[in-house]
């Protein structure tokens, strides 16, 4: 039964890829959405069965076939359902289905073959993502890992005629590849160290060891795996692809770059919790990187003007929170935040998609405003999502973010907690800046104005259509928005009373130190937890208030601030010039080495010259040798005779 979960989207992909261009849009959409919904249904059934099992035996495995069987390496294509992967498959199939439904309306302006191509890619992505989270060993997970990277490339560059889109796709794939290099090395080391790639066996073997005090093998393994995670989940230093990935259609951004693919790194760490737990130095690095990423991305998001870029940096920032949680050992909290974040981030992206759709492709927030009365459903669902991400109770984001901050504080990382709190302030600020700029105030531009890229069909997202799209979201989009909004409010409630954490406990192995649990209980009882909760709520509301002052009441004040700190503003706007630094430090040298060094030097200079040289040598030699053919019989006879004399002489000599 487990195999059905990725199989349905895979079949959907095959059908749409083979026949999609010949059928109507409705058929293609139905195939794709039906595949996802059936996968969701099977996932729910599987999880229900899992929950029915006793708590300490909650694992269902299903093997498809024996994949690799060589001397010491035995790998099967096995899918494993345990509490951790059950959360993931519900997120992927549930939110995935909603996004598929949303896309049927959003992509409706595309040509029929393109429409089917879009849905085939989307289904393929879902299939790979499900393989990733259901994989029972590193290799199956890696198949999914690579597959989602591929689909990300395909979908980011969906409008490949546009150079910026295809460039963004390439950038995503290449940067991911750099991370994958680390991941592969980590997997190889796992095999060398443990002799197996199966997750449960590795966890079992690792739990026998004691945590490493220094930077030993486990630390190296986990660090390499984490490098892979920074690539896939857009952390420092490999997050540069995610903002560019906004070139893809907005539902793609919602699904892949908010809810699912970018969470693969977090999931991977959760899956290997035992391994990571035994490498405290790596965990510290993870926490620091996560926090730094969260802060930096938050600051960049504060000054961006493209609505999707703000959301992209917000995603990077929230992912930083998840890694912070993993880094302090609060694996369940990290997964919890992953789960709630999927809801409200997908909601925010889909909402922004509705705005862009209504404005016929406009994405610059400075040209928006006053949409509150034109797009009511969009507005209210968007506000729900914004409140959720800001971390205001009783919305979903509060529970997960607060849990992370509490755990950080409780494990002694006070500095990280402070930075996390600051980032929470920034989160609320930039998110509500977005809300106020987009929906409130008055619009400074007229309808039907799209001044981006009139050269090509797809100006950032849609055709510059001739008629006004300024209506609220059509029904499929509205359904998705409303369902996600409800989820953003209620999703956090499963975490009440520690039920979520207890559910996930079998996946993460026994708690590493009993003392830590005791410490947390002690702090909770001492009212510290409540105090911290109140602090986070105050910070969130403060952020909202700051945004309200600068962007609701007094926009001129915001501009004056920007002028006063123009240097800082410019650095933030250019994303700390990170792309330029990478280009100069890495890309250009590689290009020069490749072009002048390897191509002109080695390939043309050495290899071609050698091969041609051999040809010329043969040719030259034969030019000389052919002069032996004088045509004179006597000369030939003379040479025969000479040969005979020499041979005779040789034999006499011996």
């Amino acid at each position, binding site marked *: 039964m487990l195999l059905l979960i990725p199989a349905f989207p895979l079949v959907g992909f095959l059908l749409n890829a083979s026949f999609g261009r010949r059928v109507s849009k409705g058929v293609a959409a139905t195939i794709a959405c039906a595949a996802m919904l059936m996968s969701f249904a099977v996932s729910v059934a599987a999880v229900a069965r899992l929950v029915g099992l006793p708590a300490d035996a909650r694992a269902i495995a299903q093997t498809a076939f024996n994949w690799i069987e060589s001397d010491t390496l035995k790998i099967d294509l096995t899918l494993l359902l345990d509490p951790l992967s059950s959360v993931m498959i519900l997120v992927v199939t549930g939110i995935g289905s909603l996004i598929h439904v949303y896309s049927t309306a959003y992509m409706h302006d595309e040509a029929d073959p393109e429409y089917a191509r879009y849905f085939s890619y989307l289904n393929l992505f879902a299939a790979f993502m499900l393989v990733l989270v259901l994989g029972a060993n590193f290799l199956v997970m890696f198949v999914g890992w690579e597959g989602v990277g591929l689909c990300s490339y395909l979908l980011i560059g969906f409008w490949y005629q546009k150079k910026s889109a295809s460039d963004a796709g390439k950038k995503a794939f290449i940067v991911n590849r750099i991370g994958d290099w680390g991941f592969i090395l980590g997997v190889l080391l796992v095999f060398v160290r443990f002799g197996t790639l199966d997750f449960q066996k590795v966890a079992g073997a690792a739990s026998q060891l004691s945590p490493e005090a220094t930077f030993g093998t486990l630390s190296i393994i986990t660090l390499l795996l984490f490098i892979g995670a920074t690539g896939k989940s857009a952390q420092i230093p490999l997050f540069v692809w995610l903002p560019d990935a906004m070139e893809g259609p907005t539902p793609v951004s919602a699904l892949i770059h908010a809810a699912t693919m970018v969470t693969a790194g977090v999931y991977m760490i959760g899956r290997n919790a035992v391994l990571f737990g035994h490498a405290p130095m790596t965990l510290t690095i993870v926490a620091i990187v996560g926090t730094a990423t969260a802060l930096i991305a938050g600051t960049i998001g504060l000054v961006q003007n493209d609505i999707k870029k703000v959301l992209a940096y917000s995603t990077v920032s929230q992912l930083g929170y998840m890694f912070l949680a993993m880094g302090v050992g609060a694996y369940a909290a990290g997964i919890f935040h992953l789960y709630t974040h999927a809801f409200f981030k997908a909601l925010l992206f889909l909402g922004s998609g509705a705005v862009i759709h209504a404005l016929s492709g406009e994405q610059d927030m400075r040209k928006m405003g006053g949409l509150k009365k034109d797009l009511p459903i969009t507005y209210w669902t968007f506000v729900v999502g914004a409140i959720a991400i800001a971390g205001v109770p009783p919305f979903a984001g509060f529970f997960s973010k607060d849990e992370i901050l509490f755990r950080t504080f409780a494990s002694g990382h006070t500095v990280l907690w402070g930075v996390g709190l600051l980032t929470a302030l920034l989160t609320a600020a930039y998110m509500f800046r977005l809300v106020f700029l987009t929906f409130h105030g008055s619009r400074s531009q007229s309808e039907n104005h799209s001044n981006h890229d009139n050269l090509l069909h797809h100006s950032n997202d849609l055709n510059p259509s001739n008629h006004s799209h300024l209506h609220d979201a059509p029904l499929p989009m509205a359904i998705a928005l409303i369902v996600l909004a409800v989820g953003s409010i209620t999703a956090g409630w499963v975490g009440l009373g520690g039920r979520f954490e207890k559910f996930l406990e079998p996946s993460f192995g026994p708690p590493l130190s009993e003392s830590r649990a005791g410490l947390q209980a002690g702090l909770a009882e001492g009212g510290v937890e409540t105090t911290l909760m109140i602090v986070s709520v105050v910070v969130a509301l403060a952020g909202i208030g700051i945004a309200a002052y600068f962007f609701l009441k007094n926009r001129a004040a915001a501009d004056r601030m920007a002028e006063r700190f123009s240097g800082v503003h410019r650095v933030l706007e250019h994303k700390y010039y990170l792309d330029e630094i990478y280009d100069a430090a890495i890309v250009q040298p590689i290009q020069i080495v490749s072009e002048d060094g390897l191509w002109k030097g080695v390939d043309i200079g050495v290899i071609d010259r050698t091969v041609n040289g051999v040809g010329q040598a043969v040719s030259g030699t034969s030019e000389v040798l*052919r*002069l*032996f*053919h*004088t*045509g*004179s*019989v*006597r000369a030939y*006879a*003379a040479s025969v*005779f000479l040969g005979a004399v020499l041979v005779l002489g040789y034999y006499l000599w011996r």
Partner: protein
Amino acid sequence: MPTLNDYLILSAILFAIGTAGVFVRRNLITILLSIEIMLNAVNLSFVAFGRSLGTADGQIIVFFVMTVAAAEAAVGLAIVIGLFRHRESLNPDTFTSLKW
């Protein structure tokens, strides 16, 4: 009494003379004559060896050699006649069409 070595030395000298003739002369017929000299030198050494072994084998080989020499001379002269008809010359250096 002449020894085997004497005959062999004589045969060697005659053979060398024949070989020199093949290269030195520029007349096709003289070249063929030089080849006959060579064959004769070989005949001599065969007979000498046969005599020193006391068998008839040497002479029988000579018999065959002579037959072959006759056949070869006949065919060779026929070719010379054919060549002469083409180029009106008996100089082997005129027949150099198979050049590079």
